[in-house]
C-alpha cells in the first residue's frame, strides 16, 4: 500500500528539476497565447514602436470593443464556423455510428481490407486532392456555399471517427447483442435499443473530437472553395483585419481570442473525455 507512495517521493532537487522542465515545456506551448493576449491589450501605437516592450503600458481592453466596429461581419464568421462544424459533426456521426458497429461486431469477407482502406484515407490530406475536389464541387454546383466546406470536411474526418468508435464498441460485451438476438430482436433493433445507449459516452467523445477537428481545419477548404464573405469561417474571416497599409494586430488578436473562447470553454469542460478518447484508440489496439 505504501510502496507506490514511497517510489514516487522526490528529493528536493528532483522536484526543482521536474518543475523547471515543466516550466520550459509549457513556456514553449503557451508563449504565443501569452504574447497574443498582451498584444490584444496594447494600443496600436505601442505595438509599432521600438524598442520592444513585453508588458502593455497603459494597456486596455479597447481592442475587444473596436474589433466589432472595424470588421462588422465578425460575429457572422464565428457563427459560420460553429454552423459548419455542427453540421459536419452531425453528418459524420450519422455515417460513422453504423459503420463502426459493423466493423466492431461482424467479421465478413473484406472487412479487414475495407477498414485499412478507411484508415488510408487519413493519410491523404485535403490539400493533395484539392484539384479534383475543386472540379467536383464545381460540377455539383456547391462552390461558394456552406456545402463547399462541409462536404470535403466530412470525408476527411470519417476515418479517425470510425477507428475511435470501433475501439469503443469492441469493449461492449458481445453477450448483450446475443441476448437481444435470442429474445427475437432484429439486428437493427439491437443496434438502436441495446448498443446505442451503452455506446453514448464513446459517441460523445467522437462528437467532440470531430467538432474540434472540423473547427480547426476549415482553413484550406474555405480558402479554395469559397470566396463569398457571408459564408467565411473564422480562420479566413480573420484576414479582414489585414488592412491595406498595416495589420490591425491588437484587434486581430482580440478577435482570435473571442473566436476561440467558445470552443476552448467547451473543451475544458470536456477535457476528461478528450484525453480518454484520444488515448483509448491509440495505445491499446
Amino acid at each position, binding site marked *: 500500500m505504501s510502496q507506490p507512495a514511497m517510489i514516487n517521493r522526490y528529493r528536493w532537487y528532483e522536484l526543482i528539476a521536474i*518543475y523547471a522542465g515543466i516550466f520550459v515545456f509549457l513556456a514553449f*506551448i503557451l508563449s504565443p497565447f501569452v504574447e497574443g493576449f498582451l498584444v490584444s491589450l496594447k494600443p496600436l501605437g505601442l505595438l509599432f514602436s521600438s524598442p520592444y516592450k513585453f508588458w502593455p503600458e497603459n494597456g486596455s481592453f479597447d481592442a475587444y470593443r473596436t474589433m466589432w466596429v472595424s470588421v462588422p461581419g465578425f460575429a457572422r464568421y464565428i457563427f459560420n464556423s460553429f454552423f459548419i462544424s455542427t453540421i459536419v459533426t452531425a453528418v459524420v456521426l450519422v455515417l460513422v455510428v453504423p*459503420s463502426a458497429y459493423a466493423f466492431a461486431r461482424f467479421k465478413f469477407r473484406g472487412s479487414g481490407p475495407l477498414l485499412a482502406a478507411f484508415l488510408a484515407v487519413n493519410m491523404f490530406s485535403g*490539400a493533395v486532392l484539392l484539384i*479534383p475536389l475543386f472540379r467536383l464541387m464545381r460540377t455539383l454546383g456547391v462552390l461558394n456555399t456552406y456545402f463547399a466546406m462541409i462536404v470535403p470536411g466530412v470525408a476527411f474526418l470519417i476515418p479517425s471517427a470510425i477507428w475511435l468508435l470501433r475501439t469503443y464498441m469492441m469493449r461492449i460485451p458481445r453477450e448483450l447483442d446475443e441476448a437481444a438476438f435470442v429474445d427475437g430482436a432484429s439486428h437493427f433493433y439491437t443496434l438502436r435499443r441495446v448498443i446505442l445507449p451503452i455506446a453514448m459516452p464513446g459517441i460523445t467523445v467522437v462528437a467532440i473530437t470531430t467538432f474540434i477537428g472540423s473547427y480547426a481545419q476549415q482553413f484550406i477548404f474555405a480558402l479554395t472553395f469559397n470566396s463569398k464573405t457571408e459564408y467565411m469561417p473564422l480562420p479566413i474571416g480573420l484576414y479582414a483585419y489585414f488592412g491595406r497599409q498595416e495589420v490591425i494586430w491588437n484587434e486581430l488578436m482580440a478577435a482570435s481570442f473571442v473566436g476561440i473562447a467558445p470552443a476552448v470553454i467547451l473543451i475544458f469542460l470536456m477535457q476528461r473525455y478528450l484525453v480518454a478518447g484520444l488515448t483509448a484508440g491509440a495505445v491499446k489496439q
Partner: protein
Amino acid sequence: MSVQRSTVIFAWILLLPAVLYVTVIVAYPLVDTFILSFTDASLKKTTNWVGWANYDKIFNGTFAEVIVRTFVWTFFSVSIKMIVGVFGATMLNAAVPGRALFRVLTMPPWIVPMAIGIFMWGWMYNGQFGMISGMLQNWGIVDGPVAFLARGSTAFWATIITDVWIGVPLVTLYMLAAMQAIPQDLYEAAWTDGAGRFYRFRRITLPLLIPSMITMSMLSLIATFNSFDIIWILTQGGPNGETTTMIIDTYRTAIGSKKYGEGAARAVLICIFLSIFCLAYFRVTSRLAQGDSR
C-alpha cells in the same frame, strides 16, 4: 446459413453510406488526379492528352529541389516533435502536485484553429516589432532587428518550429498515455532492487516506449508531409521559394496558376510518397502487434 447471410447483408447496409461517401469525395478525386496529370487541363474549355509531358517538366525543373526540401523539412519537424513530446510526457508523468492542470495546459495548440495559432507566430516572428526579435535585441544577443520570415534560412526554421508547436500536444499526450500503460510493478520491482530514478527511466521506460515512439513518428511523418496551413500563412512558400514544400508548390501551380494538369502530376508524386509511408506504417504496426502477442 441464412442467419449468417442476413448478418453479412446487414453489415454491408451499415457500412454502405460511409463507403459511398468516401468513395465519391476521396477515392474518385484520387483517380481523377491521376488522369488529370496526363492532360493539360486548365481554365480553357478544351483539354488535351499530353502523355508524360507534365512529369518531364517536373523533373527538368526545380521540383527535384522541392522534393529534397520537403524531406529535410519533414525530417527535422518530426524529429523535434518527437524529442519535445517525449520530454514533455516524461515531465508530465511525474507524480507532482498540479500535473492535472499542466496536462490541460498542453492542449491549446492542438485544439485552437490552426490559423489562429499561426497568426500569433507570424506576429512573434515580425522583424520590426515582434517578440522574438525584440527580446533578442533587448537582451543584447543580436544588434539589429531580425526579420525571421524574410530570409530563407530563418524562414525555413521558423516554419518548422511552428509546425512542431502545433504537433507537440498530440505527441505528448500519446506518449504520456503509453507511459502510463507500462505496468507499475516493473518499476516497483526495480525500485526494491535499489535502481535509481534515471536507471529505471533508461532501462524500463525508454525500451518499453519504443513501439509507441515508432507508431507516433510514422503518424507524425504522414501528417507533417501534408502540412499546408503553416507555410501558406507564414510565408506562402517564400522568400525565393525557400520554404516551398511539395504541397505548397502543388497548390501554387494548380490553384494559383490554374495549371490543373501540372498540379495534378505533382499531387500524384505526393500520393506515391504517402502510399509508401502508409504501407510502411501498416507493416510496422502489424509487426509490433505480433511482437506483443508473442
